[in-house]
């Protein structure tokens, strides 16, 4: 293990923690002291019985087939913009009921009777009304469609049908963004959603965002609009599909955010950059990342004002002007100028380090060429073979590092030479770490 790792591990190992105290633990929270009997079976039987009774009654009173296709709720569709509306449809995808979930929704639904119409017709009408009443506009154009049907194939099919219809709407020139998901409601979710004053669909969307970034909280996100949540979805959120582009016209825009970050960093052109919207501490923000001169930069910018809220950069690793990206620089030019070390010393040290470098590189490249063995035993022995090579080189490197340190302390090595050698050794250690990781990957084996 490298020196720095040993230091860190040692420091944490030295921390003194309180002794184990069962009484203390018991006092903190209800500890389940006895193994719980499985209560499941009893409950299941009771539910089974009651369901059977209900089913019989229904059969007696209503023709099963007719009921199923025309009056039973097959799917529940949640539509959220600002207005929040719940639409239930039957198996034929005809609207059974439309319920407003908030005051904005009541405004939208005024004078509408959608019962019996096809779901797409109904959605068109609802969106038209939202546009007319200003709920969907240039500044906020996102719609959330949440389909709830216990049969996931049916749920998907319905979701797709609605999305296709809305996509046609987008393609004919309307600038809206549709976020859609298949959800499964439950009374727990409903009560949680109720307590936040939002729909189950919005709750599920928020949960997906929290799963992606666990600094988000329900309390913060519940107050954001669907458009803002859509902006936060970014490029990769699972189980949610989006079409169209969420409006970011209330904000300065990604390009401007990047410009601000670059100018603050005093940098003009970069090799790579990425800008995503985020929500932090009450503000919609842009997270800007870019790489310049092999260093990584990270900015957080207020999406409305353009203020720089936070900035981080990869540590300025630069006492030696010659060091670019570490691993392959075999430049010995730095060491032979202005130093007080004897030239014999310098030469043998450089060549020793080069030797280690080649060894590390050759281990890495051999490991890169490993094909995953077919049996676990082969994998284990292959792993151990290379792991021991890596470990023994690591140990040699460590010892050599210590030797150089002693030489420096005795004055046999100049500071600039010492620093330069240290940097080279670090690079070799990085190569070995990489080799270790790759070894695990390639052999498919880990300890």
């Amino acid at each position, binding site marked *: 293990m490298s020196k*720095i*790792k040993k*230091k*860190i*591990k*040692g*420091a*944490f*190992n*030295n*921390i*003194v*923690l*309180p002794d*184990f105290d*069962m009484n*203390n*633990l018991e006092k*903190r*929270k209800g*500890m*389940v*002291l*006895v*193994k719980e009997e499985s209560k499941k079976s009893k409950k299941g039987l009771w539910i089974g019985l009651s369901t059977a009774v209900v089913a019989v009654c229904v059969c007696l009173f209503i023709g099963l087939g007719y009921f199923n296709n025309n009056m039973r709720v097959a799917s529940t569709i949640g539509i959220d913009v600002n207005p929040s509306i719940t639409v239930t449809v039957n198996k034929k995808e005809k609207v059974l009921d439309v319920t407003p979930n908030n005051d904005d929704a009541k405004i939208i639904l005024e004078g509408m009777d959608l019962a019996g119409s096809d779901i797409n017709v109904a959605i068109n009408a609802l969106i038209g009304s939202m546009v007319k009443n200003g709920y969907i506009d240039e500044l906020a154009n996102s719609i959330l469609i949440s389909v709830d049907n216990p049969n996931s194939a049916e749920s998907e099919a319905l979701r797709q049908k609605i999305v296709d219809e809305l996509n046609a709407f987008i393609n004919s020139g309307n600038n809206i963004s549709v976020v859609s998901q298949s959800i499964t409601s439950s009374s727990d979710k409903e009560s949680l959603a109720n307590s936040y004053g939002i729909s189950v669909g919005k709750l599920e969307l928020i949960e997906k965002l929290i799963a992606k970034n*666990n*600094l988000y*909280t329900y309390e913060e996100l519940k107050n954001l609009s669907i458009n803002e949540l859509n902006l936060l979805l970014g490029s990769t959120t699972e189980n949610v599909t989006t079409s169209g582009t969420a409006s970011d016209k209330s904000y300065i825009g990604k390009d401007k955010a990047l410009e601000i970050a670059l100018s603050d960093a005093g940098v003009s052109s970069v090799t790579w950059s990425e800008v995503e919207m985020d929500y932090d501490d009450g503000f919609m923000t842009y997270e800007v990342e870019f790489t310049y001169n092999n260093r*990584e930069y990270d900015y957080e910018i207020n999406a409305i004002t353009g203020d720089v809220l936070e900035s*981080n950069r*990869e*540590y300025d*690793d630069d006492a030696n002007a010659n060091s670019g990206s570490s691993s392959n620089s075999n430049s010995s030019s730095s060491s032979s100028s202005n130093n007080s070390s004897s030239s014999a010393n310098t030469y043998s040290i450089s060549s020793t380090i080069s030797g280690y470098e080649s060894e590390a590189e050759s281990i890495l490249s051999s490991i890169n060429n490993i094909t995953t063995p077919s049996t676990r035993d082969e994998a284990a022995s292959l792993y151990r073979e290379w792991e021991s090579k890596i470990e023994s080189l690591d140990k040699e490197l460590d010892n050599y590092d210590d030797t150089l340190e002693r030489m420096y302390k005795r004055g046999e090595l100049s500071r600039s030479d010492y620093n330069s050698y240290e940097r080279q050794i*670090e690079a070799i250690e*990085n190569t070995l*770490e*990489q080799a270790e*990781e790759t070894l*695990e*990957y390639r052999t498919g084996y*880990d*300890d």
Partner: protein
Amino acid sequence: MELSSYIVRIADKDTNALHELYEFINKNVYAYSLSILKNHDDALEVMQDTFITIYNNADKYENQDKPMAWILTITKNLSYMKLRKSKVTSDIDDLVFASNDNHDDKLLVKYLLDKLTKEEREIVILHVVNGFKFHEISKLLNLKLSTTLSKYHRAIKRIKEIVKEESI
């Protein structure tokens, strides 16, 4: 693996096993929680709550081959919940170290917590103190392996520089 046998005994509500497990891994759990919370008292609380949760749920832990990943997932969730509930402030003044001349250890821990980003701290602690491989870390933290590697290297580099500069 040893850990699995503890879990099996704890599932039978064996409090001795819980005690032994505590002696075995309390520092690992604490260190990881500290990397998220940067606050000694809060990290201690999360550590205790982790063991309570283990005790309450060992019988439900079916995937017996990665108990440490299960345990640290509990620690992670408890730590983040604490972070969400209230703004946790950085405070490690109460940290006590084993021997007297450990001024350096305390400084190192302080710099590690102050100078690294949260993700970097988690990755470094998980790898160095808990011995997690990078792909295990990637899974626990929901990151790409390449991200984990590069953040780790960046963090270690930074710490090395600080160690050198401050002669720790």
